[in-house]
């Protein structure tokens, strides 16, 4: 880390602060936004998320290229210093840089897998809630079965089928194992929405079920979908970390945060910082996501009272 990188880091921090301030300004203008801001952890959460996204996007500016390590033996397992703010690992790689580049992978997987999960979940939930009767019953039985198996076992089974799961199918699989909860929430919302008059009006105009569902009902069911997404990203990140830690997730040397923890595992005694900081990063981001998700839940649906 040289002076330029430190400056770039400071700039990233400033960008995140500006983003958080902008969100605050926009939110204060509406009643829902003010409910969001009433949570003391909401704004710090937005800041943390903005910060990590910024440094992930600006990785070349704030961190050293993890693939061009000098490999100098002397730099092995160095504790945190000004040159290496989070220390180095056993292969002389700068931990901070690996975390920054790893943010791209972990955050990216989190976002994409959650996108898949929320899309499928909203779709299934909307169809079940709209058509009811046997469609609803069949789909909800499927959801029951899906919920009865712990997600990690589903993924373990899936991984057992392939020699090595490439990244794209892995993300898809993670998404496809996580839509069950969202579908229930969306279904409940759709069940109540479908009695409203705007649905009857759309149907009277001759709109087919697909149009009614996607153009009229779902936009009004946005609240549980958005909250599911925010909280879901955190779950996916924890899951991906676990899989990478077991060696069956993102393949090493790609620096996903879970892989980083795995890499540092064997050297915990000599260099605890190699495993500790990636874990802290995960905790920070997931905490921020949970805080923002909780605040969103209150903001978008004040009837609900969650813990």
């Amino acid at each position, binding site marked *: 880390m040289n002076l330029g990188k430190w400056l770039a880091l400071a700039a990233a921090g400033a960008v995140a602060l500006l983003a958080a301030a902008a969100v605050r300004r926009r939110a204060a203008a509406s009643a829902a936004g003010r409910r969001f801001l009433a949570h003391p952890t909401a704004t710090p959460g937005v800041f943390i998320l903005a910060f990590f996204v910024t440094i992930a996007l600006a990785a070349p500016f704030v961190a050293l290229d993890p693939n061009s390590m000098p490999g100098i033996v002397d730099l092995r397992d160095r504790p945190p210093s000004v040159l290496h703010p989070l220390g180095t690992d056993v292969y002389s790689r700068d931990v901070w840089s690996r975390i920054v580049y790893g943010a791209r992978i972990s955050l990216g997987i989190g976002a994409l897998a959650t996108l898949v999960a929320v899309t499928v979940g909203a779709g299934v939930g909307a169809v079940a809630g709209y058509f009811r009767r046997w469609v609803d019953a069949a789909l909800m039985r499927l959801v029951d079965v899906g919920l009865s198996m712990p997600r990690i076992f589903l993924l373990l089974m899936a991984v057992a089928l392939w020699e090595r799961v490439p990244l794209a199918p892995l993300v898809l699989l993670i998404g496809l194992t996580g839509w069950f909860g969202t579908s229930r929430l969306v279904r409940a919302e759709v069940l109540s929405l479908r009695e409203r008059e705007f649905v009857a009006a759309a149907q009277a105009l001759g709109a087919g079920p697909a149009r009614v569902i996607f153009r009229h009902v779902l936009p009004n069911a946005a609240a549980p979908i958005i909250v599911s997404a925010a909280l879901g990203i955190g779950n996916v990140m924890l899951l991906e970390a676990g899989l990478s830690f077991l060696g069956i997730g993102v393949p090493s040397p790609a620096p996903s945060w879970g892989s980083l923890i795995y890499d540092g595992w064997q050297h915990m005694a000599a260099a605890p910082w190699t495993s500790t900081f990636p874990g802290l990063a995960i905790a920070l981001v997931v*905490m921020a996501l*949970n805080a923002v998700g909780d605040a969103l839940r209150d903001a978008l649906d004040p009837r609900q009272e969650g813990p």
Partner: protein
Amino acid sequence: MTAWLVRRLAAAMAIVFAVVTITFCVIHLAHGTPFLPGPDQDVDPQVVARLRQQFGLDRPLPAQYVKYLWALLHGELGESFYLRRPVADALADAIPPTVTLAGAALLIDFLLGLACGVYQAVRARRFADIALGNLALFLNAMPTFWLGLVLLLVFGQWLRWFPVAGMRDPVLCPTIAGARCTVDVLWHLALPALTLGLVGAAGTARYQRAAMLEVIDQDFVRTARAKGLGEGRVVLVHTLRNALLPLITLFGLAFPFLLTGAVLVETVFAWPGMGRLSVAAILQRDYPVVVAAALVASAMVTLGNLLADVLYAVADPRIRARSERA
């Protein structure tokens, strides 16, 4: 009540049956894999064909399904390729340690979470509540296995208060015998159970706090105070008794959490349970073990939900009345 119970049981069995079917499909999809020769191997195709016939992999699909169900009912879960022993045996050895770990973790989870949640509710919005609340958020957000690593580092390596791996001392207690070895197991159990228990307690405390706060505003709590009951009795008997119902839901939800956590935590602490068995099997592509473990996990989760429903009916007389009428 009995009719409702029977219906619930039937639903649970239906779920397990569906999972069994899914696992069969999974096995069938993978049936070629273990016998496909690797790039460096030169296996005689006739040997492969013979092996497939031996394992019954060349029969028509429905016949295989029936054979599978029949085998399951007899407790046969196939043969592990890697371990070269029946899967059922391997699982039978691995399930008790996992159940022990999960049980201990659940105990820590509920005791700690309950106490914490009640305390936070009584001191709502004051410093203790805010501090504990943020600690719980932090615990909930961290990867469970990472917490395990940190605890291992601090208490196992630096302070040397607890052992760093395994379930028992390999030299002194090769098989469980006597009180001395029970203590040894408990000593080994402490850190992994604490890891799972702490993270679980964080979630439990949040729910318990919310449940208590909802109840504490209700009219009947005011009536209890007006009757001259001490604050301790008001909180612990009148309020808590009404705030226990979410805890039963959490009990049902705890099973998937504990089983998931077991996979990772057992790996960190080298605890010889179902989780570690599954992970080792995965790395060897030993899918009979993995599929069987998934099946067992699913059965446990379903059982947990069923238990939770029954407990609900027992705890809340209003639900009992509803189920009696239904």
